[in-house]
């Protein structure tokens, strides 16, 4: 089990002998996904689903038909972009600026595609084209938190599909139910996403290189929030890898997001 690297693992008390490495640590690359991860994925799915309901409501309020709202969630399937479009349209903005900000927000998915490419590289083109549809924040984050290739691939697909289902069911419910639903922000659900991303970032912070990239990425994004249109801060944060690549040594195993090899 790879639970030594996930946020869910309990630390043994300090006075006990250290736990020996899990038996399949050596076969890490092909180890399957742990059960706790599957549960975490559905937790993420539930939060996404509630936001999907919110999107459905907002989209129909902004003038889209239920069919259009649902089609957007199926075909575009990028939450931030979808909210941007209906938000701009709903407040009277032009279609051009709606689409422009949607694309800015969708640009980070290109970086996610690059991040997922090694995990899916040996799959057929057809499978990769299918996988592309679910390349989003959550699937990439869940996948890259796992230390083995097979676990990463499984996490990617399971998260992608779970989020796809939840988001679309939510959209349909929201579109149909109209205003008869609660506000996700009253439940603090907008904080659920940065919280989830904090937990998923942990494995990437175990190497010096990862920490430098993290600090640079966060700093770039923070600095650009007041200066740049929505979406650009995150895309620009990808440049945070440059100082990390230039000024730090690579971890022993670049595919182990946890840096588990050098930590053992």
């Amino acid at each position, binding site marked *: 089990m790879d639970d030594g690297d996930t946020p869910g693992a309990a630390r043994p008390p300090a006075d006990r002998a250290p736990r020996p490495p899990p038996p399949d640590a050596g076969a890490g690359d092909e180890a399957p996904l742990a059960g706790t991860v599957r549960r975490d994925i559905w937790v993420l799915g539930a939060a996404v689903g509630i936001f999907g309901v919110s999107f459905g409501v907002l989209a129909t309020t902004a003038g889209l038909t239920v069919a259009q709202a649902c089609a957007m969630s199926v075909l575009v399937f*990028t939450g931030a972009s979808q909210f941007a479009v209906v938000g701009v349209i709903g407040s009277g903005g032009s279609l051009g600026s709606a689409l422009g900000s949607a694309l800015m927000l969708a640009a980070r998915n290109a*970086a996610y595609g690059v991040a997922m490419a090694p995990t899916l590289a040996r799959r057929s083109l057809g499978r990769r084209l299918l996988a592309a549809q679910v390349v989003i924040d959550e699937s990439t984050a869940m996948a890259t938190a796992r230390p083995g290739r097979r676990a990463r691939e499984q996490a990617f697909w399971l998260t992608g599909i779970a989020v796809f289902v939840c988001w679309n069911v939510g959209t349909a419910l929201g579109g149909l139910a109209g205003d008869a639903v609660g506000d996700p922000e009253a439940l603090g659900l*907008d904080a659920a996403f*940065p*919280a989830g991303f904090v*937990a998923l970032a942990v494995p990437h912070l175990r190497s010096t290189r990862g920490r430098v990239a993290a600090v640079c990425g966060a700093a770039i994004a923070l600095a650009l*929030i007041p200066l740049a249109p929505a979406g650009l*801060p995150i895309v620009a944060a990808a440049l945070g890898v440059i100082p990390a690549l230039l000024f730090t040594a690579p971890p022993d195993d670049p595919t182990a*997001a946890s840096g588990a090899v050098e930590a053992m």
Partner: protein
Amino acid sequence: MSWWALLALAAAAYGLKAIGLVVLGPRAVEGPALRLAALLPAALLPALVVVNTFAGDRRLELDARAVGLAVAVVATWRRAPFVVVVGAAAASTALVRAVS
């Protein structure tokens, strides 16, 4: 919003997602491409945290989300399960909003 605009957006969004997977293919599992790919989430995830916590309408905002983030950081540091990290963050943010 016209269906044409919707389909155009869908095509563009899909294209952005597919670029990395299609162009990089088998070459992605070696050398510099791999190191870059493995490092992107390290830079992007903290950026996502920052933007989702502190971004307002083209400006920085400090609100209840920051409380949720602080709770999430503490919970993560204490090795709480993912469910607890997310749940505690949401609950604390909701609580702060409810009492303010």
